[in-house]
């Protein structure tokens, strides 16, 4: 009598694959980002860089076409909104000069020396995060251009994030909105320091350690604190206060901050060649 037996091979193959994956995970964890795995990663990234550059220019019109289809309704709305804004802008022009003077005075008062004489490396954002869960971008400068892990990344407006991984020609930047990102910050008006942590792509940053007695005003600028051993120099604009509230019997305020840089539309950035080591 023939007896049907389900083959054990697929399960054996799966077991083998799971064991291999667990081994790789352990190997990566144990070497702490310095081992063979990272060499392979860097090599792959550098090897694919020219292909990416070539295909990027070829595919960009196609990608723009699809983006246009996906966001057609939004583009139409944006177009109408821009027309209205343009009309309003004419009226506002007269007020701008005065506002700029006030802003400059405020910045001078707060001593917000943004970047100062720190050497910078200009870079182009070549890739948004390859993952749907990780908030990083890839820039077209790497070790060869003097970029190292830990260096702050900024735009003209303010802080973008920090370099977390570098290959010969590319670097990965962890955005301030990433949930693993923490930045030491100072509230510009009160001088109170805290820690701003990312909470995801569309969420404001959360600032911890703000004393309940501190007066926090909406729209108040928030800059990097640059306290000792901080990986960021002091005075880089991070964002503006969105909300501040004191829950009953809390030992700290619940403060949220809107990033000053539009992190979803990055094109050019600057890497500050800054080291916190004395």
């Amino acid at each position, binding site marked *: 009598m023939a007896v049907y037996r389900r083959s054990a*091979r*697929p399960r054996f*193959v*799966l077991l083998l*694959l*799971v064991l*291999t*994956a*667990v*081994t*790789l*995970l352990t*190997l*990566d*964890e144990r070497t702490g980002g310095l081992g063979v*795995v990272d060499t*392979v*990663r860097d090599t*792959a*990234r550098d090897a*694919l860089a020219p*292909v*990416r550059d070539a*295909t*990027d220019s070829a*595919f*960009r019109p*196609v*990608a*723009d076409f*699809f*983006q246009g289809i*996906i966001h057609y309704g939004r583009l139409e709305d944006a177009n109408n909104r821009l027309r209205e804004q343009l009309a309003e802008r004419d009226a506002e022009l007269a007020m701008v000069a005065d506002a700029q003077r006030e802003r400059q005075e405020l910045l001078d008062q707060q001593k917000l020396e943004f970047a100062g004489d720190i050497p910078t490396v200009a870079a182009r954002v070549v*890739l*948004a995060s*390859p*993952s*749907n*869960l*990780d908030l*990083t971008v890839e820039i077209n400068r790497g070790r060869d251009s003097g970029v190292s892990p830990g260096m702050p990344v900024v735009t003209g407006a303010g802080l973008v994030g920090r370099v*977390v*991984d570098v290959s010969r020609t590319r670097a*990965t930047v*962890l955005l301030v909105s*990433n*949930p*693993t990102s923490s930045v030491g910050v100072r509230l510009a008006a009160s001088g109170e320091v805290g820690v701003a942590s990312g*909470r*995801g*792509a*569309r969420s404001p940053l959360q600032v911890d350690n703000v004393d309940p007695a501190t007066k926090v005003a909406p729209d108040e600028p928030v800059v990097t604190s640059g306290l000792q051993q901080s990986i960021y120099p002091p005075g880089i604009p991070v964002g503006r206060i969105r909300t501040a509230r004191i829950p009953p019997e809390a030992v700290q305020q619940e403060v949220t901050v809107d990033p000053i840089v539009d992190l*979803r539309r990055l094109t050019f950035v600057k890497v500050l060649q800054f080291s916190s080591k004395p």
Partner: protein
Amino acid sequence: MGLRLRVLFLMLIACVAHQTLFAAVRWGDVRPHLLLLMAVSAAIVGGADRGAVIGFLCGLLTDLFLQTPFGLSALAFSLVAFGVGSVQSSVIRSAWWIPLLTALVASATAIVLYALLGAIVGQSQFVRPVLLLVALAVGAVNAALAPFMVKAMSWAMTDQAESSFAR
């Protein structure tokens, strides 16, 4: 071209397209995951055994360009592809919507599984309220591309000698 060579060729194309063309095509903050879709399609076409192996390789390729622990995507993709292959073998009638539904559910499951496995190895930042939404959105965009990928994988994974004998 040999069977393995065709699969590797497709994998390379999917990897480059994933890193270039599909990096720019975003729906909200979500983009299609071609390598994950390839793993799922391989399981639909080739069953649990082949699906798991191709899922593992696609996962390794994905991990090469991520900051998360190496092997995390490989583990998640191979497990999901194995599951898809196992379920697929018990499907007795074929319909056009089955690969679409499979791609949707499997892709969403893979994203959630990836986040949960990530949390186990210390990447707890992935497990947040928006995760389910991201998973469903990735599933939806992958489902839209599934017919093309399943066709491509059928081409890559069908033995030429076998198909000419069948004719």
